[in-house]
């Protein structure tokens, strides 16, 4: 109630995921029969399925039961609320929620509090009253891609943004992160920033139109990978694959394949499986009674052809790679 509205990107009470063990010690012993509820945005995007995998993977190691449910589409706000409320009713011990919007799960926060069930906000939209948040910094997705441009295209040029669904938190943050960073030096101009609605076809059409108007475009930044893969096809169809770079966000498996195939230039991977594992760990630590900082930050990395091998392939353990990257 009296909590400061959370800003997950700037909250001072935070900890890096890599420090969990170091600062809090090993996970305490858990009671038997724990049930954890995961509430996702949608299962129609690999990103969210991967997050669920992470939950499951971590829970399986400890024999904890997980139910992972999702609304029927990213626009289904009340359906998601119904799911979360149902989980409180059913007596789940802790909830991991990825809200559709900043507000749509607010009533659950209140009900869960009354029922003494901790709630962890995992990624994306940020519930202002959230006591616990695990996730990356959405803005930073865009910032990282913008920095790539600044470093790798020193002459600047025209860039275009394909946005996610109008008004959705992740889309807004990513777009603004990219836009403000890339425009800083004055060398780049964002010639188009148009909606792709998380939709491949729409993004393809928009990219076709933009390319034809600006054949000298340097690159695209897309708010997610599905859209980026559509844009890649449009770039190919326009015969500009050598000139125009395309970046996505999320790091889904198809994006990796496309990077390896030399088509997609890069994606900002926010490691959904690992994020899921970390979130589950945080949830279980909370259930076990530990005190945690309000925000536990999860990693993200810009994946391009140059470093894709480090993150993907046989014998690569993301956790170790990222731990190393975090300097642990």
């Amino acid at each position, binding site marked *: 109630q009296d909590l400061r509205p959370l800003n997950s990107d700037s909250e001072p009470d935070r900890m890096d995921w890599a420090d969990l063990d170091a600062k809090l010690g090993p996970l305490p012993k858990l009671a038997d029969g724990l049930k954890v509820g995961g509430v996702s945005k949608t299962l129609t995007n690999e990103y969210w399925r991967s997050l669920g995998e992470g939950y499951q993977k971590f829970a399986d190691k400890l024999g904890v039961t997980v139910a992972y449910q999702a609304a029927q589409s990213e626009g*289904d706000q*009340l359906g998601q609320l119904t799911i979360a409320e149902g989980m409180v009713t*059913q007596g789940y011990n802790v909830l991991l929620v990825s809200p559709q919007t900043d507000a749509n799960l607010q009533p659950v926060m209140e009900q869960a509090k009354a029922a003494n069930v901790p709630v962890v906000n995992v990624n994306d939209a940020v519930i202002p009253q959230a006591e616990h948040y695990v996730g990356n910094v959405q803005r930073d997705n865009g910032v990282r891609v913008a920095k790539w441009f600044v470093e790798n295209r020193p002459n600047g040029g025209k860039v275009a943004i394909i946005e996610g669904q*109008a008004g959705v938190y992740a889309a807004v943050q990513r777009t603004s992160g990219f836009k403000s960073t890339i425009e800083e030096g004055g060398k780049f101009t964002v010639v188009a920033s148009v909606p792709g609605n998380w939709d491949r076809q729409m993004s393809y059409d928009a990219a076709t139109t933009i390319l034809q108007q600006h054949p000298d475009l340097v690159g695209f930044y897309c708010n997610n990978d599905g859209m980026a893969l559509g844009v890649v096809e449009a770039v190919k169809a326009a015969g500009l694959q050598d000139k125009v770079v395309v970046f996505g966000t999320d790091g889904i498996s198809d994006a990796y394949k496309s990077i390896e195939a030399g088509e997609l230039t890069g994606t900002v991977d926010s490691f959904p499986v690992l994020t899921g594992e970390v979130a589950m760990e945080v949830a279980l630590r909370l259930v076990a009674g530990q005190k945690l900082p309000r925000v536990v930050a999860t990693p993200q990395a810009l994946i391009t052809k140059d470093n894709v091998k480090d993150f993907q392939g046989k014998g690569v353990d993301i956790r170790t790679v990222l731990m190393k990257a975090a300097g642990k």
Partner: protein
Amino acid sequence: MSDTIENTAAPATRFVGSLSVRDAGTLIGLVAIVIIFGLLAPEFLSQRNLLNILQQSSINACLALGMTLVIISGGIDLSVGPTAAIAAVISATLLVAGIPVPLAILAGLGIGVLCGLVNGVLVAYAGLQPFIVTLGTLSTYRAIALIYTGGNPVLGVPQGFRTLFNGSIAGIPNSVVMVAVVALLAWVLLKKTPLGEYLLAVGGNEEAAYVAGVPIAMTKITAYVISGVLAALASMILIGRLGAAEPILGNLWELDAIAAAAIGGASLMGGKGSVIGTLLGAIILGAMRNGLTLMNVQAFYQLLATGLIILVAMMIDRVTRGRG
């Protein structure tokens, strides 16, 4: 086709109290769903969960009642979600700015009136097809809500407002009480007032209604205005629950509302529909969603179940009541 023929000769609809044969059909559907879920998921029947279902259904029921009147008049209102969104962000802005609760509510409902009025005037005076008019305003109103807020949610809705819409009286959530009152009013309107007859007449045979002196345009406009107001009310219930108003609120609400009305016996050809049926329809949809969640059915299978249940409900309906 033989249906149409039999239909003409179908036995007169008789009312037992105010529960028609058709409504009884819908009720049977609901009871069946409740029994099935009750067996599969025991928590389903807990008092708390049943109240939950009612509360969860209240928003859709509120919209669906307005939709029912519009459908009866021979129209359709696809713009309810965005109408709700504009009403929500505007009353929330006012509330956050410290405007007294009753005024903010009035402003929100006023927005509902306005949105409905635009729909109604375009349908009644410009003579455009309701589906297309409200498809157009669906985009337009949503854009207005987004532009007005810059896409950001309006946070910090004051507690007084929230308690009003999200509190409960003797354990019954206020929203459920409100929607019950709305339903009662809608029932009276449809069954007892001249306007109710006008709605049925305009939707049932517009030419006959015109010749009989029914104010066609006024009747249609009123239906859309009521739908707009109820969309605004639904948005108040929602922001009461959420404590925030978002410009993207109300996405796809129209489909749920139409489904509830249709399951409840409204004919999209106009001239036919029932307040009680619609209420039951909304509760069926709410109970189903609740039950599937309780049973932890995965999203894709929930979608499957939703689709199949709409089809099955319509078929049961068709069988129990002659014709859908």
